[in-house]
């Protein structure tokens, strides 16, 4: 297992320690708006344990993935605030 993984968040390459959660990688980029509510309000991680669904992002084209429950892997494409 590699020591680090490299993924792309909103087009920007990010290097993370292997085993990191996607939510941590997103925060490392300085992004706080993970998604928008139905009425357009900004949303980001609240519970950090998969229950609140506020940290959802699009991972490899799949919408509504919980970033706090998804481990980063090499080449992953993450998009926030869609």
């Amino acid at each position, binding site marked *: 297992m590699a020591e680090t993984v490299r993924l792309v968040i909103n087009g920007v390459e990010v290097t993370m320690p292997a085993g990191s959660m996607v939510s941590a990688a997103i925060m490392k980029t300085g992004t706080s708006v993970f998604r928008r509510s*139905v009425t357009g309000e900004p949303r980001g991680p609240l519970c950090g344990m998969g229950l609140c669904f506020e940290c959802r992002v699009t991972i490899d084209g*799949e919408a*509504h993935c919980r970033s706090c429950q998804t481990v980063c892997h090499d080449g992953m494409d993450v998009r926030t605030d869609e």
Partner: protein
Amino acid sequence: MTAPVYDVVVIGGGIVGAACAAECSAEGLRVAIVEAKMIGGGATAAGMGHLVVMDDSEAQFALTRYSQLLWEDVREELPGEVEYDACGTIWVAADEEEMGEVERKQRFYSERGVAVEVLDARALAEAEPNLRAGLVGGLRVAGDSVIYPPCAAQFFVDRALQRGAALFVGKAVQEITLDGVRLRDGSVISAGVIVNAAGSWSPSLTAGVDVKKRKGHLVITDRYPQFLRHQLVELGYLKSAHSLTADSVAFNIQPRRTGQLLIGSSRQYEVNDTTVETGILSRMLSRAIEYLPGLGKLSSLRAWTGFRAATPDKLPLIGPAVAQPRLYLATGHEGLGITTSLGTAKLLVDQIVNRTPKIDVAPYLPSRVPAHG
């Protein structure tokens, strides 16, 4: 005996009762609406809101088509939360036999002035790229649409209220009397005409009404805009939905204006509790995933159930009750009550004021079926 306070008391604040109340009040009648729980909270909240023209029988076509045109008339006045979406329907054919059904439907609708388009396998794939490969084709009915039924019911109740109707919410009817209704709290609402629009609960108030509960499940997903464009219904639906005894599931899915997907459908008889049942729910979802493989990766938010008001001949009961001439029925709409609510309201009022309806009411008259004890 004193004069009744109301001309009409409508029992049931589902979409059928709401539409009937709005239509009666538009006629200048003094209307009371009695709803035991909440407006649009029964079968109305468990319907997909698919405004669909159907071809199961001439009578079913006549009522759905008449109603669909009434929806088109009112469409501009519907508030945003009704989420009217002219997405159209595609009836999906999985094999050559079902493609034969597409052609039969194409002739049926075309002969009656409904615009339809036959899709071959390629056109179907272009119209709905998330459908699995290997389907044979389909029939697109562009004039069909989708609404959010509970808000539509509220809209019609509000219209009735603006025209002076009275609303009694949270008041259950204990019994229908000769001159009105008696509520469970003991109070009485007197009316010249009583309308039983209580859906699958209507037989508990009027003995002999041959309406049975037919349970259905629905699932709503998270928002996935672009996943789906039309309401899709499998043509196998015709086989499964018409069985009067066995439990059945069918692929029936619609895109909501929010980007969510509303997934149906299941049909169960002799089940009277509202529990979400994992067995039939998983059959229903498996069926949907057979058609839309990508659906399996999407997140659902909620599953719930409701009861269709089913009649033996699959047509609603609209008109005077057999036993009591001042009692009218507007019930038994099975899975088509959202569509046919508006036609029902017109046919009901026409009968109350003794006017010739725009379509023949004979197939929907309660007197057509033998009354049971």
